[in-house]
């Protein structure tokens, strides 16, 4: 027992003091290997030694995903207000002003239309530096207007999330943004437009429990914390220590909650490929299956008739029902 403890301490010996990535200096804060700012930038803010994905701000993310010169902002003029006159240890308006000065942003999400690897998309990008990427009324409204633009333009939606959840300082109105974004997505779905979400570190609370998990395909960057409730609260509730990978992308993937974990260097191509595949489906010429008055689910009906009908279906448009590709079969 004693020995184990000693070993643990020794292994932790070289740990450098933790700091935000801005104060990264010449070493990676995760693996402590030397890395220069230029190297980091060239690697899209991923440590070339250990692969740790450092957070990106919204502008950097847009620059990595949008084709150069194609970004056109949507709903950028919306400004936050203070509907509750909220005051905790500081006034909400002061926090907003400070976040604006620090980030140059007016809110925690940037929304716009652009091209991504040549494809036209509606792109939303959250910025965790702006009040923890929290969703208040403006984030909800920008999201909804982005969806409206996607519908108007007939283009798919791609949203990169980074958020602690609903914004406390707008109280119940923040909670209602969860409902609002879900309703907006319902309308996107009516137009059969694809939605891909890219979950980055961290995506938690009300953002994960609304639009982020309603995407047709959900991607995540490696090591991103993806939880409804933060680990600290879970530890307090369950009174047990959580494993270090708990709630991370890889664990979410293993539990069937997301589709893929994607390295940042592959992200743009991966999104473009998925969009191409998702949009490719609309060109299929399957006839919609209509109820057939001759086939009724009546008990005791002739089994042979049902089997014959099933075969007929499999030879026309529904071959995939039987796991065969219609194109592989003899057209007779």
């Amino acid at each position, binding site marked *: 027992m004693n020995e184990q403890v000693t070993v643990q301490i020794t292994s932790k010996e070289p740990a450098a003091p933790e700091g935000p990535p801005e104060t990264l200096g010449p070493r990676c804060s995760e693996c402590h290997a030397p890395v220069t700012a230029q190297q980091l930038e060239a690697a899209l803010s991923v440590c070339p030694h250990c692969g740790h994905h450092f957070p990106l701000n919204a502008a950097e993310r847009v620059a990595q995903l949008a084709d150069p010169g194609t970004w056109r902002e949507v709903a950028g003029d*919306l400004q936050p207000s203070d*509907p*509750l006159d*909220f*005051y*905790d*240890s500081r006034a909400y308006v002061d926090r907003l002003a400070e976040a604006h000065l620090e980030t140059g942003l007016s809110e925690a999400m940037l929304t716009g239309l652009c091209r991504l690897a040549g494809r036209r998309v509606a792109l939303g990008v959250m910025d965790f530096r702006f009040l923890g990427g929290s969703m*208040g*009324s*403006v984030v*909800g*409204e920008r999201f*909804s*207007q982005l969806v*409206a633009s996607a*519908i*108007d333009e007939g283009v798919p939606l791609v949203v990169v999330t980074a958020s602690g959840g*609903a*914004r*406390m300082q*707008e*109280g*119940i*109105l*923040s*909670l*209602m*943004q*969860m*409902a*609002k974004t*879900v*309703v*907006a*997505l*319902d*309308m996107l779905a009516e137009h059969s437009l694809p939605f891909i979400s890219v979950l980055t570190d961290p995506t938690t*609370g*009300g953002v994960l*429990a*609304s639009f*982020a*998990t*309603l995407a047709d395909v959900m991607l995540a960057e490696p090591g991103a914390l*993806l*939880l*409804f*409730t933060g680990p600290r*609260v*879970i530890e307090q*509730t*369950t009174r*047990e220590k*959580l494993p270090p990978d*708990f*709630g991370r992308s890889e*664990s979410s993937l293993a*539990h*069937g*909650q997301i589709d893929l974990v994607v390295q940042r260097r592959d992200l743009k191509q991966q999104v473009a490929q998925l969009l191409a595949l998702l949009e490719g489906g609309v060109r299929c010429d399957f006839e919609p299956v209509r109820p057939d008055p001759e086939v009724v689910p009546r008990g005791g009906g002739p089994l042979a008739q049902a089997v014959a009908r099933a075969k007929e279906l499999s030879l026309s448009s529904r071959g995939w029902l039987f796991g065969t590709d219609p194109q592989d079969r003899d057209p007779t």
Partner: protein
Amino acid sequence: MQLARRQDRPLALDYIKHTFPDFAELHGDRLRGDDPAIVGGMATLDGRTIMIVGQQKGHDLKERQLRNFGMPRPEGYRKAQRLVLLAQKFQMPVLTLVDTPGAFPGVDAEEAGQAGAISRTLQVFAGLTVPTVAVVIGEGGSGGALALALCDRVYMLENAIYSVSSPEACSAILWRDAAQAPQAAEALRLTALDLYRLGVIDVVIPEPRKGAHKHHRATAKVVARQVEAGLREIEAISPDERLRARRRKFLAMGMLAPADAGF
């Protein structure tokens, strides 16, 4: 706030007991379990069948442990989805009774997809064409409560609360000190009257003198009358228009733009 959390306050099953003698409870999410924190089933109201889904906290320690203090797991939300889709299939109006401190914050719940269970419940409620009414009867805590409250009408009992997070969690996050909960409760504006003023709920249902906990039966009766009146109102609208009106209502939340901006 203390009133909203009283153990002797009428809970979902009390409303059901006093209002719906023919309530037929249905169980299970057909995927992995049956969550006792969410109860649901069919009953007759005003001559037609309705589907009721509610969060049940429990009156004594034993029931509260069984019901996980009204904190649903993904199974509970998936049961709710199943039941309201059943209601949609047979054209039954839906009544939800909201009373939870929040969705359960546990390892198993996270691994089973708590966030996705909530978002998909919201999605299912958003797409229903049958009339839907939510009543916040005690504590409406966070996304775990909202999951059952994306409805045509949202009512709230006079002493109930409804907020983006529990005052304790809010205080821990913003003040870094859970002891500031009373101040957080004040700042969050979580009373029925606050929410009515903010346009988030439609009606504040008055409680009998000294509070609902003193008069279960009378409170249940007032709630039933209000739900009946609300359902009659919504049933007069065509299903298409009902869906559109519900969308407009929630798209307008946040007071930033006209209800149908962009759509």
